[in-house]
């Protein structure tokens, strides 16, 4: 079942509808409820390679529904530590639980101060309301 609309207040958000859960010098990344809803049922997640560098604001993988493909935009820069194999094997997990089981990748931050450029939940909700 698709998740109902929600935006957790412990996350930081990028305008391209990606989220980051920052824990020390690492972060878990994913796409927001808004992003998965706009795409529809995901059928494919093309992850970046483990060990590769991702750059804030640049694509770090692709998510694809029956009808459309979309870049996953990295909210922060860093090195890819882990890819969520469940999102690769069962992409619908991202629709069902975009902030939990449906996370996409985990990175080691190269510049933790970049988090200051991300939105908090209130700013992101306002951003979604403008879409």
């Amino acid at each position: 079942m698709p998740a109902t609309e929600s935006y957790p207040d412990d996350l930081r958000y990028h305008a391209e509808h990606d989220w980051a859960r920052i824990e020390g010098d690492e972060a878990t990344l994913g796409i927001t409820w808004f992003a998965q809803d706009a795409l529809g049922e995901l059928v494919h997640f093309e992850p970046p390679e483990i060990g590769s560098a991702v750059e804030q604001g640049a694509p770090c993988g692709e998510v694809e529904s029956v009808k459309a493909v979309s870049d996953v935009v990295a909210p922060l820069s860093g090195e890819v530590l882990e890819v969520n194999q469940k999102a690769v094997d069962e992409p619908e997990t991202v629709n069902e639980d975009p902030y939990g089981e449906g996370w996409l990748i985990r990175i080691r931050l190269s510049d933790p101060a970049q988090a200051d450029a991300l939105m908090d939940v209130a700013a992101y909700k306002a951003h979604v309301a403008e879409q």
Partner: protein
Amino acid sequence: MEATSLQRTPLFARHVAAGARMVPFAGWEMPVQYQGVIPEHRAVRADCGVFDVSHMGELHVDGPTAEAFLQEVLSNDLGKVGDGGAQYTLLTNERGGIVDDLIVYRFAHGQFMVVVNASNREAAYAWLKEREPRGSEVRDASDEYGLLAVQGPRSLERLGLDEQPAFTHAMGELDGIEVMVARTGYTGEKGVELCCAEDAVAALWDAVVARGAVPCGLGARDTLRLEVCYPLHGNDITPETDAVSAGLGWACALDKEFTGVEALRRMKEEGPARRLVAFVMDEKAVPRQGMPIEGGGEVTSGSHSPMLDQGIGMGYVPTASATPDTELVVDVRGKPKRAHVVKKPIYRKGES
């Protein structure tokens, strides 16, 4: 297509109320999905779905010379179609290219209707009108009709209709609404297309939905037709592609005279340089229209198959690569992804 001048079918408000995501398609604002492409697709394979296809074009071709005229411009042998019959056929150009693919319905001697793709309504009408001989009249009646496709193994049962052979049609009544019931469709499932007066289509939609048909959008319509390898005009077949290369030789009566028949006969004799094949991805990837296939091919339709849970597609490849089980490599946004050619259709009932 100008975004400002999109047309709407009489069902627009119902689509929006049902939660549809509306998208521009061939000059129309149409539902791409309601609850989701995959559940809608599965509803049609397992039970019954309903599609608003009122954007399609209906052209009447009438008159004492209408049959001879249609025999000259359409590829299939209309002589095989009796009153109450229907036939898949192609409107071909002089090079054997495909102006449109369509279904022709015969009501009586000298009374025909052709249902054309929404995107080709003007082109098909103009093509026929320019060639209309004395004793035939071509009339675009698209604005007078609404059209619903009700498709799926339980569709006839849900509509309370008797079993009828495929490619037949008759006038009938559904919950008090006068309809033309045609045993035709674009999903590979048993089903009907219901044509009614434009101002009755909203009541017809309500009646069909009340009988348990699941509203389905263009997204599911595309994945359903692709699984059974029905070509989409504009993608898999165009005025630049011919019926022989597209594997539609079965819809061309090469023993009769029609526009482009010489080119098609030559093509069949010499063998086409490339063929439209169906393929299944062997790696996780979704092929899309326009992606190159290594060795000089191109994807013309691609998507994710809800029944196979794999990427599937159709595309033109050199004839040497067109036999089933041939390995293909599709360039998916710069990444080579393995696929293999399969016999059409990609999906067969009971194989998943």
